[in-house]
């Protein structure tokens, strides 16, 4: 019976869906086709653009990753060579570990400071709206501009940061060329990543906080629960889906860091990913392989490895969140 009704299209028609009834009454096949013709007409320009410039390139990139594609001459099929080459490439592993370090620091920083900002601005006071704007300002400012501001702040001799830490507070003994020292460069860039992202995490946390029932807080307060106890036992459990969402989105963001590193490392050291490849992340390394070395096949393979890593990390995060009852 089930099979029969499905074949007749009854089961489909019965499923309540707001988007279907428009054409459910179409009596015959040809009439249905005639009616759908303008729908396909409406779809055509968008799908054409998408097909030529997104779907086809995606497939081509996959094919390229198995070849030694350069811009000129014939390319030969290499099988998995590009992938095994990446796995044997020490620079790939170095870039991966830098990427992971950058991601961990920026994700934790944005989560904690974003939550802090949201808690501060979740109370009612004059100037709250203005402060929300201020916290959000870095989010809407372009990466190139904020990167250049920080290059200026980090200036090795007369930068504001050196003036503050060395000349004023005396925390450091000498001026530091923050972006030119392999030990500090990537972390200095991570500070920019955190500062730029706090406002966004805050907005998401504020939305999450609005889901915490006020009555529950009041009841806990009546029972004599301290502020900290109320935060831990009432607020935090309600924020769990928010934290999971942020964790995944911010991790993808960390793995996608590119413009800040591109601009800041080349401004401070003259090479993208400098000093001494200390700021090379997967994206800058891939970009250089593809567009500086013109080794597009290898670049394509690296970009698919990055996609795999991002996908795997997201799945693991979601699994862990589920197991811990976070999502």
């Amino acid at each position, binding site marked *: 019976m089930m099979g029969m009704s499905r074949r007749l299209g009854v089961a489909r028609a019965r499923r309540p869906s707001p988007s*279907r009834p428009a054409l459910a009454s179409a009596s015959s096949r040809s009439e249905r086709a005639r009616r759908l013709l303008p*729908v396909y007409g409406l779809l055509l320009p*968008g799908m054409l*653009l998408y097909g030529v410039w997104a779907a086809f390139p995606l497939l081509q*990139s996959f094919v390229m990753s198995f070849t030694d594609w350069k811009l000129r001459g014939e390319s030969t099929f290499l099988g998995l060579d590009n992938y095994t080459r990446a796995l044997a490439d020490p620079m790939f592993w170095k870039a991966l570990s830098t990427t992971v370090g950058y991601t961990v620091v920026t994700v934790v920083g944005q989560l904690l400071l974003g939550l802090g900002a949201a808690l501060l601005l979740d109370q009612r006071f004059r100037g709250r709206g203005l402060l929300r704007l201020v916290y959000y300002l870095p989010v809407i400012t372009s990466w190139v501009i904020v990167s250049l501001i920080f290059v200026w702040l980090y200036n090795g001799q007369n930068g504001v940061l050196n003036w503050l830490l060395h000349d004023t507070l005396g925390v450091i003994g000498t001026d530091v060329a923050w972006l030119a020292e392999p030990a500090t460069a990537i972390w200095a860039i991570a500070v920019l990543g955190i500062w730029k992202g706090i406002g966004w995490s805050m907005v998401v946390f504020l939305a999450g906080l609005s889901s915490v029932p006020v009555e529950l807080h009041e009841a806990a307060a009546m029972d004599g629960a301290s502020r900290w106890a109320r935060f831990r036992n009432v607020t935090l459990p309600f924020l769990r889906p928010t934290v999971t969402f942020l964790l995944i989105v911010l991790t993808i963001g960390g793995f996608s860091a590119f413009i800040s590193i591109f601009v800041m490392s080349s401004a401070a050291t003259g090479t993208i990913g400098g000093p001494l490849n200390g700021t090379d992340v997967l994206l800058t390394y891939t*970009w250089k392989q593809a567009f500086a070395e013109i080794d597009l096949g290898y670049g394509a393979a690296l*970009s698919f490895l990055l996609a795999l890593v991002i996908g795997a990390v997201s799945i693991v995060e979601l699994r862990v969140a589920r197991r811990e009852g976070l999502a």
Partner: protein
Amino acid sequence: MTVVDRRGRVLRVLTVGLAFVFGVAMLLPFAFLVSTAFKEHAFVLEIPPRLIPDPPTLDNFTEAWSTGDFGRYFLNSAFVVTLSTIISVSLSAMLGFCFARFDFPGRRAMFGALLFTMMVPGMVLLIPQFVLARNLGLLNSLWGLVIVYSVMNLALNTFLLRGFFAAMPQELFDAAQVDGAGVWTSFRTIALPLAKPGLATVTIFSFLAAWDEFTWAITTLSDSDLYTLPIGIRLLQRSQSTEWGLVFAASLIALLPVLVIFVALQRHFVAGAFVGATKG
């Protein structure tokens, strides 16, 4: 007043104070951006750094406009961004409308494919798009930028607008159909006017994404006449003896349209804040 009340008040004063201190810290880099833009070259890295320029000067702004080809970059950006935003928003409105209101063979496959490319890291597409643009003669071309920026936001815009179109009551469309309105007419006269808030959000985000786009432009543009603002600004920064006043004056000019849109259309930002955050 009880002890608990008093502690609550002290805590409140502390947290509100902290919120403002934090705000100042967030704003400080922008304060330096603005003040340096109004400083003479000799003072851009003065020690101790001063927030109020002395003497203040407009030279950086006039120099950016006149000598630095900056007007040209601004026009290039305006051209590319306007065109790509119009294309992306119109095409994705048409797509979103069809996906939301009609059941047609291939609907799930097409929509799924769109969503799939949304999840692929940009670098995966950058390399083959570069090859495609080269084959079509669209490297080092503003038209190449227009096309790539239109596609860049297409999937996300379609996804968002589909939600708006799906939430509209079916009766409106039934009534129009009875009156003999075709697909195109009901799209134009019923769906589009009702989707205005969604269209506004999508337009703002497409505009901002294209206005700030860096990676495709730096990868494909080699002719300095074609540079857009982000590329032009970066070029002003040199590893030796950067004219920081000029860099920041140019940055402020580029930032101005973004700020105006942000302040004027703030409420659309919260709605859109949850999407498109991974770009960058």
